[in-house]
């Protein structure tokens, strides 16, 4: 219950009291009073306004109590009282503001650069997603006290930073937005990396991240990278049902049963990508990755895959987001589009990159290209090397099988 209002309520209160921890407590109090009140009086026409008003009363009560105490202790008279009234008035004025982008402000606060990546993810899931500490702990395969402490520290760090919970503007907006998008994608990938048979809360992180992405796209409808990330997540999530065999082993994209791809998500993803591109965002890192995912989503069969287009997109991505892993994928795309020899030359160029030193996919890709180029003896050694680097028993088995087939 109240999942509908919770995040916006906390956001509205945080902007007034400028402290997420306190805002969360006030929101909780307001929800409790609604639980007592609504069954008798019915759901108010504007539930959020009702809850905000209840939270505001609590905030002012708390403030007055504190002031009374201070007055008793200090025994100062008139001056303090005047000041108190002004402060209460300020508080009331702030509460009466028509708050439209309060939720966006809270999202930006939860993903603030003063926090660590783990703190950002935990706080975003707690405040915006409304997940309990226990759910977050289960989702991130860690203990409840660890997550609880992570959240407490994050709230403290935000309070110390003296945030105003406003949406950043101008040049700052793009930098801060990048952080928000990274947090959402991190949550998505955490869910995506969950394996069959794991606690269901982990795959549910994908749905949570998609929802965050949709909320953000609703709040910032003209930001191409927001739409790019949304498109990327919708299209990747469309394959969730197809990517593992009944025994839990992973199925390669090209071997997946495309009947299991979720066409509703693909349609939504393609639509979001189209909007991102129409807004001039075709070359954003997320939009490019979404465009890559879209190439696979559009192919009716693996054979229909438009590899030359994928190779071209990777060329662009390598310029926008240079990394050895992107280069490796780029080499794979070129090998599929233009033949294994082309791919091999590209792989050899990056084979010494320190970041790929113990990266099992590198020798696995090299083995595959050599095998396709009709050089099985050389391929075998690379498959064996990949198997010895792999952390995953099933993957190791697969690679040793390929080595044996050489």
């Amino acid at each position, binding site marked *: 219950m109240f*999942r*509908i209002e919770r995040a916006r309520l906390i956001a509205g209160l945080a902007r007034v009291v400028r402290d997420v921890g306190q805002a969360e407590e006030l929101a909780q109090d307001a929800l409790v009073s609604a639980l007592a009140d609504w069954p008798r009086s019915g759901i108010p026409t504007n539930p959020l306004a009702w809850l905000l008003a209840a939270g505001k009363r609590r905030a002012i009560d708390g403030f007055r109590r504190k002031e009374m105490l201070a007055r008793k202790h200090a025994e100062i008279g008139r001056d303090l009282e005047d000041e108190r009234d002004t402060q209460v008035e300020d508080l009331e004025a702030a509460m009466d503001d028509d708050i439209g982008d309060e939720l966006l402000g809270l999202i930006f606060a939860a993903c603030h650069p003063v926090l660590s990546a783990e703190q950002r993810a935990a706080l975003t899931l707690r405040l915006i997603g409304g997940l309990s500490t226990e759910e977050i702990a289960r989702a991130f395969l860690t203990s409840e006290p660890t997550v609880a402490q992570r959240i407490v520290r994050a709230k403290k760090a935000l309070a110390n930073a003296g945030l105003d919970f406003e949406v950043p503007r101008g040049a700052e907006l793009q930098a801060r937005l990048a952080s928000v998008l990274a947090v959402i994608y991190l949550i998505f990938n955490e869910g995506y990396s969950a394996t069959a048979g794991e606690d269901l809360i982990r795959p549910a992180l994908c749905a949570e991240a998609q*929802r*965050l992405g949709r*909320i953000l796209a609703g709040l910032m409808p003209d930001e191409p990278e927001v739409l790019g990330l949304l498109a990327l997540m919708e299209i990747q999530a469309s394959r969730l049902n197809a990517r593992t065999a009944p025994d839990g082993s992973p199925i390669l994209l090209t071997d997946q*049963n495309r*009947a299991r791809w979720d066409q509703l998500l693909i349609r939504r993803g393609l639509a979001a990508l189209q909007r991102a591109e129409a807004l001039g965002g075709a070359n954003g890192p997320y939009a490019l990755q979404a465009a890559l995912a879209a190439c696979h*989503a559009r192919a009716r069969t693996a054979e229909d895959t438009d590899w030359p287009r994928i190779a071209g997109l990777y060329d662009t991505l390598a310029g926008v987001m240079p990394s050895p892993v992107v280069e490796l994928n780029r080499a794979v795309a070129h090998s599929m589009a233009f033949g294994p020899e082309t791919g091999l030359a590209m792989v050899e160029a990056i084979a010494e990159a320190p970041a790929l030193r113990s990266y099992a996919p590198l020798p696995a890709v090299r083995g595959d290209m050599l095998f396709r180029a009709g050089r099985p003896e050389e391929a075998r050694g690379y498959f064996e090397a990949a198997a010895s680097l792999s952390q995953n028993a099933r993957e190791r088995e697969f690679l040793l099988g390929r080595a044996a087939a050489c």
Partner: protein
Amino acid sequence: MRVMVFVKATEDSEAGLTIDAETTAMFEAMGRFNEELIKAGIMMDGDGLRPSSDGKRVAFDGASRTVIDGPFAETRELVAGYWIWQVKDMAEAVEWVKRCPNPMKGPSEIEIRPFYEMADFEAALSPTAEAIHSRNAEAMAKS
């Protein structure tokens, strides 16, 4: 989880669209509700259906097929519109439906039904059935 939310028909909706102040106000309220659904990130799809007088039914009995023209009698069991939502659980779907403006002029009902997940079908599909479904999905992706 994904749910389909059905707006059930009434005598009014079966009579077709009447443009009056009440309908206009309802459309406005419904527009705002849809806006909330989108902002909350749960809205996947949705639309309204014309009265059953524009519809047809095909009745099956063994080898026979009988076409029945609308309108259909059991008004309150008919569907007048639908949404597809992605929600955390049924409780959340119920909360949202409670917030929906009454879609009809008089008393009306909205019904929430969860989708089957792919896993639910696993046991029911033979390899042949699986292959056919696979072809169908490919064909749908093409269109």
